[in-house]
């Protein structure tokens, strides 16, 4: 990848809408309000008070919940006298048992590995800034990666999948959600909350300003 050149002079006060390319002058946006593109109405900036700190805290919370969600029993299944506890970990290995290892790896990546790695990357990129420090080395790369992989982190879709699976086997067996199910549900809520504080353009602007000064 080519090296970054010197900071382009005189273009600091401009911003181009990522969806429609319309140019805007950056005016200070008061926290809590939204700045939209005047042409396509995409939200450009929606800064929140203390957003950095909250995002990092929520990312850390989500990471802890994630670990609980993976290894604690997720669902318990009872048929007659038999009972079986399954963790998310078992769900991932289920595909590999039936000779579908690539699919097993893909499911693991989508519901566990990728969401977890994204949380770590976000905490790494924003953590020092939440404390008012200079960004960590490669912070931009970490945040760029987290942004690019966002559509592929599918924890919330997995939760709906669990609900559907439960209905499908109600005729066959009695199923009770375990602690990991609630950890996963909480994880989805925390993630939604974290995303609501996330204003990409503000984060990028702050990253650049802090690494310069």
């Amino acid at each position, binding site marked *: 990848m*080519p090296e*970054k050149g010197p900071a*382009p002079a005189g*273009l600091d006060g401009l*911003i*181009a*809408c*990522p*969806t*429609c*390319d*319309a*140019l805007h002058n950056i005016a200070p946006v008061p926290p809590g309000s939204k700045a939209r593109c005047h*042409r*396509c*109405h*995409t939200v450009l900036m929606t800064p929140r008070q203390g957003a950095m700190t909250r995002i990092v805290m929520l990312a850390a919370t989500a990471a802890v919940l994630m670990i609980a969600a993976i290894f604690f029993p997720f*669902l318990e*299944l009872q*048929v007659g006298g*038999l009972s*079986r506890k*399954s963790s998310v970990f*078992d*769900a*991932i290995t*289920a*595909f590999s048992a*039936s000779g*579908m290892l*690539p*699919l097993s790896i*893909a*499911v693991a990546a*989508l*519901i566990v590995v990728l969401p977890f790695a994204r949380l770590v990357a976000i905490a790494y990129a924003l953590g020092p800034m939440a404390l008012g420090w200079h960004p960590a080395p490669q912070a*931009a*790369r970490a*945040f*760029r990666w987290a942004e690019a992989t966002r*559509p*592929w982190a*599918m924890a919330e*879709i997995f939760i709906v*999948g*669990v*609900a*559907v*699976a439960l*209905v*499908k*086997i109600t005729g*066959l*067996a009695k199923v009770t959600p375990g602690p990991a199910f609630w950890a996963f549900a909480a994880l989805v809520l925390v993630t939604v909350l974290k995303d609501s504080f996330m204003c*990409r*353009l503000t984060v*990028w*602007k702050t*990253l*650049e300003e802090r690494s310069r000064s």
Partner: protein
Amino acid sequence: MENARRTQSVLTARRAGLVGCTTCGRVHARQAVVCHRCGSRLASRDTGSLQRVWAWLFAGMIAYIPANLYPMLVTSTFGKTQQNTIVGGVIELFEHGSWGVALIVFVASVLIPIGKFIAIAYLAVSARSAVVIRGHGRQHLYEVVEFIGRWSMIDVFVVAILAALVQLDFVATVHPGIAAASFALSVAFTMISAQNFDPRLLWDAYEADDT
């Protein structure tokens, strides 16, 4: 009123002889290659975009065919083996009276994938013309496609969960079928297709913004 808005010219980064970063919004001189703020590659317009959109879209459509022909789920109950395709699973849920869940699976596995094929194809075809739906309509369509495509993965997860859970030997076992893999691939390919689309193209046509 509408016509007045339509002919009104909007100053875009390209018209101003600049290039905007689609990741962080930073504006650069035309000849810049890498964004100074976030390190993303810069392109005034992603010229290869439509080609990649079509390639991934076709891959997604092809993978969707075996996903419907082969079983998604192989269930053995008391020695009897039953194979369920996507549509077969929906019909069975419906017959059991679980209408709500049948509807969720039907929407996620049939309506969304097919709707997404059509929507992406429409956006790619219409990218260079401003005739059918105006900018805002197509922008909304693009946003919906981006947001909703991932939800098709539900059925793949359902299969994974069932296979993990229902392993009570002699009573019932569930195995994923070939369709689970090809359906997952189909969803992934269409997601990549949608991500390759450069939404700025839609607005260029609308504004007849040519340089």
